[in-house]
């Protein structure tokens, strides 16, 4: 048999450019390299010297699918640095924007990008012929998520209204009511997707790893809270560097998350494992439909976990809209003044934990930026998973091995554009 290599150049159905290189000798795996081939983007460097008011607008361009999460967490990091407080309406509008992003991003990944593998199709385009109803429902749900983002942020990709201290425009009570009704109607659509998913066969693969996510006592944490791990870590987000280290693979444009020499896992499955006691009624019922026991150590369950979280977000969006409808929604122009300071904020983007940490001078110009995206955090864990899965699939054809490795990497919902503008080296 001798030395063989399996090269998956440009992993398909993910955002950005990544490749996987696996080397085997006599059928045994000897080396795994995941390479991020996306051009280096240098955001942390060219953010230096920019004004605090435009930092979130620039930083959200790191990634389109997570643009709302980048925008909001970047805004919060700036506000922390400047000591700027916002009112409940602004908090609610930001939350609603993020709920829209969750619905759009999770449906896109689970149903457009991951589902085709489960039903033997190469893409959602070819799957549309066999499963027209599911594809139409997926389009409808995705549009609903986008419409929530448009209502709160002005646009579905790279929002225009979020500002430091607030928004440049607010939605009307009437528009919010319309969206709330659409969310109610779409529950049965999401249930159809959950029922379809429940009939699919999940690859059997278990490897317990170090799961990290935000955690708060009052709700299932998607925004706000502390940094937590399934193994019991709980710490203020400002301490992120103590728990999330990084290494620099010489074959990649991205750095890789690491803790005590091993990988960490962030994303829907990590959140579900860590916050499983705080699920909303619809999410609890979705979990039951899908029949997943928590905590789950099967990376492939990350896809189903996204659908469970979509149900969670339906409940959270309903509550947030109620809170907004009970307020006057009287728009006022946010007015802020710059000051020197440091601010760190962490959020859960749909695909995992996301940190933005900044320092500003007294004129509000950015001095340093440190941004760690979910795919950076998951990077080492992906390679470890490939090593663990390989013996299980090694007996198959080269084609089937490649497909399973593609599926494994895809299950992380990797965002390769995000990962390759890595944090500052210390």
């Amino acid at each position, binding site marked *: 048999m001798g030395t063989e290599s399996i090269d998956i150049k*440009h992993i*398909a*159905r993910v*955002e*950005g*450019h990544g490749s996987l290189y696996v080397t085997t000798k006599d059928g045994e795996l000897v080396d795994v390299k995941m390479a991020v081939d*996306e*051009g*280096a*983007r*240098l*955001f*942390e*460097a*060219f953010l*230096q010297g920019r004004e605090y008011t435009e930092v979130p*607008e*620039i930083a959200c*361009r790191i*990634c*389109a*699918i997570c*643009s709302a999460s980048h925008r909001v967490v970047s805004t919060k990091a700036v506000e922390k640095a400047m000591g700027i407080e916002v009112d409940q309406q602004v908090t609610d509008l930001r939350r609603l924007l993020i709920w829209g992003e969750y619905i759009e991003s999770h449906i*896109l990944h689970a149903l*457009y*990008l991951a589902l*085709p593998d489960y039903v033997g199709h*190469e*893409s*959602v*385009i070819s799957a*549309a012929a066999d499963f027209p109803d599911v*594809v*139409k429902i997926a*389009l*409808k749900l*995705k*549009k609903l998520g*986008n419409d929530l983002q448009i209502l709160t942020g*002005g*646009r*579905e*990709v*790279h929002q*225009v*209204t979020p500002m430091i201290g607030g928004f*440049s*425009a607010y939605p009307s009570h009437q528009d919010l009511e319309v969206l709330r009704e659409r969310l109610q109607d779409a529950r049965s659509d999401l249930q159809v997707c959950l029922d379809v998913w429940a009939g699919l066969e999940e690859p059997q693969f278990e490897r317990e790893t170090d799961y990290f996510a935000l955690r708060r006592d009052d709700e299932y944490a998607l925004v706000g809270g502390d940094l937590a791990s399934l193994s019991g870590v709980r710490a203020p987000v400002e301490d992120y560097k103590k728990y999330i280290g990084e290494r*620099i693979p*010489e*074959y*990649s*444009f991205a*750095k890789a998350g690491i803790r005590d020499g091993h990988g960490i896992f962030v994303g829907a499955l990590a959140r579900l494992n860590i916050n499983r006691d705080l699920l909303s009624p619809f999410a609890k019922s979705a979990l039951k439909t899908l029949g997943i026991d928590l905590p789950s150590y099967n990376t492939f369950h990350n896809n189903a976990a996204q659908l469970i979280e979509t149900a969670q977000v339906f409940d959270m969006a309903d509550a947030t809209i109620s809170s907004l409808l009970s307020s006057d929604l009287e728009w006022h122009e946010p007015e802020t003044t710059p000051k020197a300071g440091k601010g760190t904020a962490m959020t859960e983007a749909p695909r995992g934990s996301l940190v933005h940490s900044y320092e500003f001078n007294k004129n509000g110009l950015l001095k340093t930026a440190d941004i760690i995206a979910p795919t950076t955090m998951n990077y080492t864990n992906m390679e470890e998973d490939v090593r663990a899965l390989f013996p299980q699939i090694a007996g198959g054809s080269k084609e089937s091995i490649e497909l399973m490795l*593609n599926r494994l990497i895809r299950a992380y919902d990797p965002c390769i*554009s995000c990962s390759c503008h*890595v*944090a*500052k*080296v210390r």
Partner: protein
Amino acid sequence: MGDNGKPSVGIFGLTGCAGCQLNILNIEDHLLDILNLVDITTWVMAKQENSEGPWDVAFVEGSVAKKSEIERVKKIREKSGVLVAIGACATHGGLPGLRNFRDISEMTQIVYGENNDHIDAIPIKPVSAYVDVDYELPGCPMEKTEFLEIVKSLVMGKRPYSAQYSVCGECKALENICLLKEGKFCMGPVTQAGCNALCPSNGAVCEGCRGPAPEANWAAEVKILKKIGATPEDVRRKFLKYCPSVAEMPEFKELEF
């Protein structure tokens, strides 16, 4: 043409945020109609099986930001009948082109530290800097409506419509309150229309992401911005923020800040 008589289409991403490709997926109301009109044979972001070309139409997102992408974009050009650059990165270099105005080796060191020999980063340029581009859909991200319009036009063999006036014109037609009059640094008067003045309609200034409007009076915009308090550096930054390729234009070089 593909086997089924429909034009074959390739969708490609160079360096960028994938937002313009995402905006194609975001055309939820018409995505299935688009798939009925054209045969998407290559789209790595959405498909596992991808053809090596040729394509009747190629849509290219992202900027050319590393050496290997120069060859890649040339290959796509060779194998495509029509090449359409989508989004500010592909049409004007885009916001990540902010790095062009700083020292790349210094920035690479800031981000990646001393061990950065494997980092291949070149000054960011739009697709048209390396190959002929037939049509451009500007904006960060590109407008979904403009994408739909160009697909329909190309399938029907007619020339796609593109607005020959500024965002300011659209904004006035919508009867929005002028943000320049409120003392905000808006780029509407000099920016290519086609977004229906989305940002000013939402109370946010136009950042110029769609690039310069034909025959816009840049000197007048510079004068207005300075009058309401912008420094020469503020003005320069505004013009180049999303469109670093503007720095190469003679009209820009002649401007007095």
